[in-house]
């Protein structure tokens, strides 16, 4: 299927009544939910994850993608509200027509970026398991190096995620790993329990401790972009919104094409695909064309719906921002419990979610990045299978990862890039003596 016919197929999938309704409603709902205090984008997406079970794979990913873009524009609209504009229409009228043009430009860029996914996917499809393993390892090294956290802590977060992904039965041999002879968790840690626990429990706990460093970190992670000041403040807010939409698309690209999620949103979407048996990666477009192309079409439509809604419903959105987060946080926690419980109707999985949430809360207190843990967990499965297949193909010769030119090149590129990124960060710290670690960007949120 070439790219144009692929997109035509995607729009055909999206135009099915249920999918179109889900796309429009989810984009609108995302826009509204972004204004509710105490409900960050990562929380909303994590909450929506278990309920995607009831839907087919294409509908499920369309729902989540539209929700993600609605949340992105909703955060932008919230920033506009904070800088004193009663609605985006008034803002556009006050400074015509630059903000709207900037935002639409961001939306077009978002669609163009995600349209690259089929090309990258095709390039990666020729990779053998050894190359895929090298690519994943290179990306993990790069992620640890690029993290604003210290290198040992970032590596430990990724390693923790990888270890958590190993729990349960080994696919080929049926041997139970790290199970301590328990009968629980036969299939390992449920993805829903991990995502909800790691993202939600610390958020709700932080509400009880608003003055602590952890709460400050959580709030900083989920707060809308800071309100700019000066004459071009509306244009700046629009630029932030457009850039956020393009950034969201950019984060979906490696997840769709390579199966490697860099952000929570990509991780949740990848998790949804995995739950439906459509594992993200180079083969996704051929194995689950409806989900793949439907998602790309949904990105275009969700951007359009969110911008129109944002322009039309400024006043309604400002009312939502006044709701006390103490009213919404308990409902969010109970929805997380319901979502985890509903997967297998097993209360033990709710306890697993709680345990992982407490673990994540402690990580957050210690300044670790939860995003790296989730990333490690999600790539753990493909990495495990890839290593197994590569070693089987090479008759157990571990040098296969270094003797194959492309694999070796990928590993070398990952290491060189990681060194460059780290050296750049170190030199920046030295040249900016006042800069603290809290001021650097984080994966959280």
């Amino acid at each position, binding site marked *: 299927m070439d790219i144009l016919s692929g997109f035509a197929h995607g729009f055909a999938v999206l135009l099915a009544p249920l999918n179109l309704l889900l796309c429009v409603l989810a984009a609108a709902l995302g826009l509204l939910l972004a204004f509710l205090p105490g409900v960050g984008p990562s929380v909303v997406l994590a909450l929506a994850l278990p309920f995607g079970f009831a839907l087919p794979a294409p509908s499920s990913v369309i729902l989540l993608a539209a929700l993600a873009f609605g949340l992105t524009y909703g955060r932008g609209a919230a920033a506009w509200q904070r800088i004193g504009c009663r609605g985006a229409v008034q803002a556009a009228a006050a400074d015509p027509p630059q903000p709207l043009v900037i935002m639409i430009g961001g939306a077009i860029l978002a669609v163009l970026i995600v349209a690259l996914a089929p090309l990258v996917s095709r390039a990666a499809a020729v990779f053998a398991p050894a190359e895929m393993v090298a690519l994943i390892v290179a990306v993990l090294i790069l992620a640890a190096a690029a993290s604003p956290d210290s290198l040992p802590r970032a590596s430990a977060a990724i390693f923790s995620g990888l270890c958590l992904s190993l729990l349960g039965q080994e696919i080929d041999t049926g041997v139970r790993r790290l199970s301590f002879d328990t009968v629980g968790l036969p299939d390992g840690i449920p993805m829903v329990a991990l995502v909800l626990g790691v993202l939600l429990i610390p958020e709700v706990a932080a509400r009880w401790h608003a003055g602590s460093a952890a709460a400050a970190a959580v709030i900083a992670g989920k707060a809308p972009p800071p309100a700019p000041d000066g004459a071009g403040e509306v244009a700046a807010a629009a630029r932030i919104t457009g850039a956020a939409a393009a950034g969201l698309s950019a984060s979906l690209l490696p997840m769709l094409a390579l199966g490697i999620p860099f952000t929570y949103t990509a991780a949740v979407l990848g998790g949804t695909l995995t739950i439906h048996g459509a594992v993200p990666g180079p083969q996704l477009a051929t194995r689950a064309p409806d989900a793949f192309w439907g998602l790309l079409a949904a990105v275009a439509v969700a951007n359009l719906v969110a911008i129109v809604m944002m322009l039309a419903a400024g006043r309604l959105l400002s009312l939502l921002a006044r709701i006390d987060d*103490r009213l919404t946080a308990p*409902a969010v926690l109970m929805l997380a419990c319901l979502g985890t419980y509903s997967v297998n109707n097993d209360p033990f999985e*709710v306890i697993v979610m709680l345990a992982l*949430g407490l673990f994540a809360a402690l990580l957050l*207190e210690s300044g670790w990045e939860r995003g790296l843990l989730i990333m490690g967990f999600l790539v753990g499965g493909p990495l495990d299978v890839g290593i197994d297949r590569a070693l089987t193909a090479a008759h157990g010769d571990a040098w296969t990862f270094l003797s194959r030119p492309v694999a070796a090149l990928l590993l070398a590129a990952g290491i060189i890039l990681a060194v460059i990124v780290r050296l750049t960060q170190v030199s920046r710290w030295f040249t900016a003596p006042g800069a603290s670690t809290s001021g650097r960007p984080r994966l959280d949120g």
Partner: protein
Amino acid sequence: MSRLVLLAILALALIILAVLRARRGSSIAVVPLLVVTASVALFAITVRPLGLVAATLIGIAALNVADLRGRVTAVLLSMLIGVVAVVALTMLVDLPIHLWPRLGAA
């Protein structure tokens, strides 16, 4: 039984970590974690015998009990919002979860 042992080991690890951090002078906000733990644990324990509505009410009550400070109306409102959200989603997605206690069931 072995599940309980695993959970006990995890709890012990968390306590040791908390003590170590406290000795270093950086204390962990224990109360919020305990409150959330109680709320989620009560939901998990009660959802099967009592149904979703009762479990949600108990969970939210446990979450709010440590922070009442005379705002009973807010607590009742949060319970209402929680139950409506949970029941609406269950019915919307048609989740196979019973809302009310199953009288006579084991």
